[in-house]
């Protein structure tokens, strides 16, 4: 009997291609996606580099040399790039920013962090060392810690190199000479020729002042993923209507396919906007997300995101042949998009290539927009790129849905 149950179950699985696909292929697809995201984090060229800006307002030799050492770091991407970097014949000075500009770049998310070498305070003559600050965006929590270590090392190395050039030539007075040896040891102990490097201070320019920065960061990721899931589930009504001939009846009435799609799009957009709003209101009430002070940006992002998600869901429904097919296609597509677009794993953890691929997903643009609103607290005009991309996506997807729906009109 048990054998019969197993045999029948196996035969049913074998006769059901979509279930076979979900059981055996989908896990491999997702394994591959996550392997691509995390597996390439070795020494390959696609390893994520930390994008930084440098502000050197100090005239000191130490800061100049530190900047040079930072530029030589393969794990850093300096913005803007120094065209002569790597060319030993022409080691020109790197263009650097003013302190405020560098800070603004961090705030706007153009770079992950900024290294600022400030001029020493003249009021304190004994303090002739530059002040070194790392202005970080704690959105990328890994970058700030890694960068702190790299800067610390660069400054110490520069400091040691400068100290070495200032120390007596060891060749002129051999260390075998007990007097020279004793003097050298004494210098080391007192730090006379090896001055201590300046302390590197890490400043969080964005997240530090927020009540609950982590929630503000991840709320949008989760919200966008579930927005896509709920929109595609609801768009399945189109396929249900087709399967039970309700679509025939609808199209025999005064309703046209254009009106049907637009009606469903408007409904899905409204439901999506309500869903996102409820999520953020809940976040504001329970997790202290500052919604009230970001209403304008939130409303703009929510409207275009919900609209684009509705278009996307209708396009998927129009492409699929049955509600069951829509179920597994949407699961695969949304999970893939969410993985690549940063809803599951922050994009800064991904390799540079995968981050670029992620830009092809709907999620990445939506999340970037919400991050600009809640995390970076940028004004509405700074969202123009995200709003434009999502609006275009919305138009393209609904147009595709309309084109695919032609077959239902003619069938």
């Amino acid at each position, binding site marked *: 009997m048990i054998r019969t149950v197993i045999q029948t179950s196996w035969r049913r699985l074998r006769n059901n291609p979509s279930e076979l696909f979900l059981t055996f292929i989908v896990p491999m697809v997702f394994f591959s996606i996550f392997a691509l995201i995390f597996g390439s984090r070795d020494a390959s060229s696609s390893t994520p580099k930390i994008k930084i800006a440098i502000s050197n307002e100090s005239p000191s030799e130490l800061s100049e040399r530190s900047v040079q050492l930072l530029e030589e770091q393969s794990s850093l991407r300096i913005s803007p790039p120094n065209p002569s970097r790597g060319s030993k014949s022409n080691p020109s000075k790197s263009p650097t920013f003013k302190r405020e500009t560098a800070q603004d770049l961090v705030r706007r998310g153009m770079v992950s962090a900024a290294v600022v070498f400030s001029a020493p305070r003249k009021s304190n003559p004994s303090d002739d060392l530059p002040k070194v600050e790392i202005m970080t965006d704690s959105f990328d929590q890994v970058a700030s810690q890694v960068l702190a270590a790299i800067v610390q090392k660069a400054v110490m190395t520069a400091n040691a190199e400068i100290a070495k050039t200032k120390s007596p030539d060891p060749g002129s007075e051999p260390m075998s000479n007990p007097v020279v040896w004793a003097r050298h040891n004494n210098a080391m102990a007192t730090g006379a020729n090896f001055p201590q490097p300046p302390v590197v201070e890490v400043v969080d320019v964005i997240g530090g002042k927020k009540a609950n920065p982590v929630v503000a960061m991840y709320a949008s990721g989760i919200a966008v993923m579930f927005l896509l899931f709920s929109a595609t589930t609801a768009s399945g009504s189109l396929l249900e209507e087709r399967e*039970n*001939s*309700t679509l*025939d*009846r*609808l*199209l*025999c*009435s*005064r*309703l046209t396919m254009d009106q049907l799609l637009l009606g469903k799009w408007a409904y899905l957009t409204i439901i999506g906007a309500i869903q996102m709003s409820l999520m953020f209101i809940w976040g504001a009430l329970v997790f202290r997300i500052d919604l009230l002070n970001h209403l304008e940006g939130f409303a703009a992002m929510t409207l275009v995101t919900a609209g684009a998600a509705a278009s996307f869901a209708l396009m998927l429904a129009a492409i699929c042949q049955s509600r069951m097919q829509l179920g597994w296609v949407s699961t695969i597509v949304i999970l893939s998009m969410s993985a690549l677009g940063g809803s599951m794993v922050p994009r800064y953890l991904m390799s540079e290539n995968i981050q670029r691929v992620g830009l092809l997903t709907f999620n990445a643009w939506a999340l970037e927009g919400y991050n600009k609103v809640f995390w970076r607290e940028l004004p509405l005009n700074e969202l123009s790129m995200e709003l434009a991309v999502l609006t275009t996506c919305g138009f393209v997807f609904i147009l595709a849905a309309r084109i695919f729906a032609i077959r239902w009109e*003619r*069938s």
Partner: protein
Amino acid sequence: MPAASGSLTQPDNLANAISSEAPALEVVDLWKKYGQNQALSGTSFSVKQGERLALLGPNGAGKTTLIRSMCGRVRADRGQVLLLGRSIREPDVLQRMGVIPQDLAIYSDLTAKQNLECFGQLHGLRSRRLRERVSWALKWIGLEDRANDLTSGFSGGMKRRVNIACGVLHRPQILLLDEPTVGVDPQSRQRIFDMLDELNQEGTSIVLTTHHLDEAETRSDRIVIIDHGKVVADGTLEHLIESTIGARRQVAIEATGLLMAAPSGLEWDASRNRFVCLVDNVAEELPQILDRFQRAGGVVTDLEVHQPNLHHVFLHLTGKELRE
């Protein structure tokens, strides 16, 4: 019969343009091909105003394509469909037609009333007119007391009635019903046909496809049989019988014993394990048939004499049972 006048959903200019003399529906030389499959091959017939027409055909004969062409859901390769003298492609003409699909094309997660309101609105009914028609429909289908119940909890027959009501809210002048009683118990079938009779008496023309030959026999004024996308018979039941198998009776004989071959003049009906033949005069020919059996070594165990009916006509014309 009077046409369903006062169709408030129709524009006045359309109402004026439609001829009261024109057939309710006219299918003119329809051709439709899907890949290599010729679904319709010059199908033509018409439905008079106030007429009840049954459309029959074996599976794959082209019935569904024909129905979908008539309601504008399939664009024929050639030919046209006229509704009250005007092409269904003209604006608003299709609003004079009601379509009842074979499937339950209603929203199971809406109540009966909400379903009616939805389809009423989609046919252009608004406010007071909508309320009146929904109220009428609920009474017509006998579900006034279940108006606010979700249709998912309804029996099959009740769902069928709601399905039909959704297609007649806008008072169509012609109603296309694709197997409206499939999977319905006899009481519900009777109820549905009573409802349709009521509509017909008010002037609505009805085109019905069915797999129940008795429905076609008793519930239609005229029968059209199609096969391989063509009309193979068109007329009243009497006319069809007369023009195909005449007034002859069918004799069906079940027999045992070693029969080397069918006695002359009889055919073996393998589907029912019996011999059949058509006779003009039962009293004269039946004894001769029985004699032939006896001489062939067979023993007659059962004998039936049938008056010709639609089933015989259908078999004669298509060579198939209706459900084949």
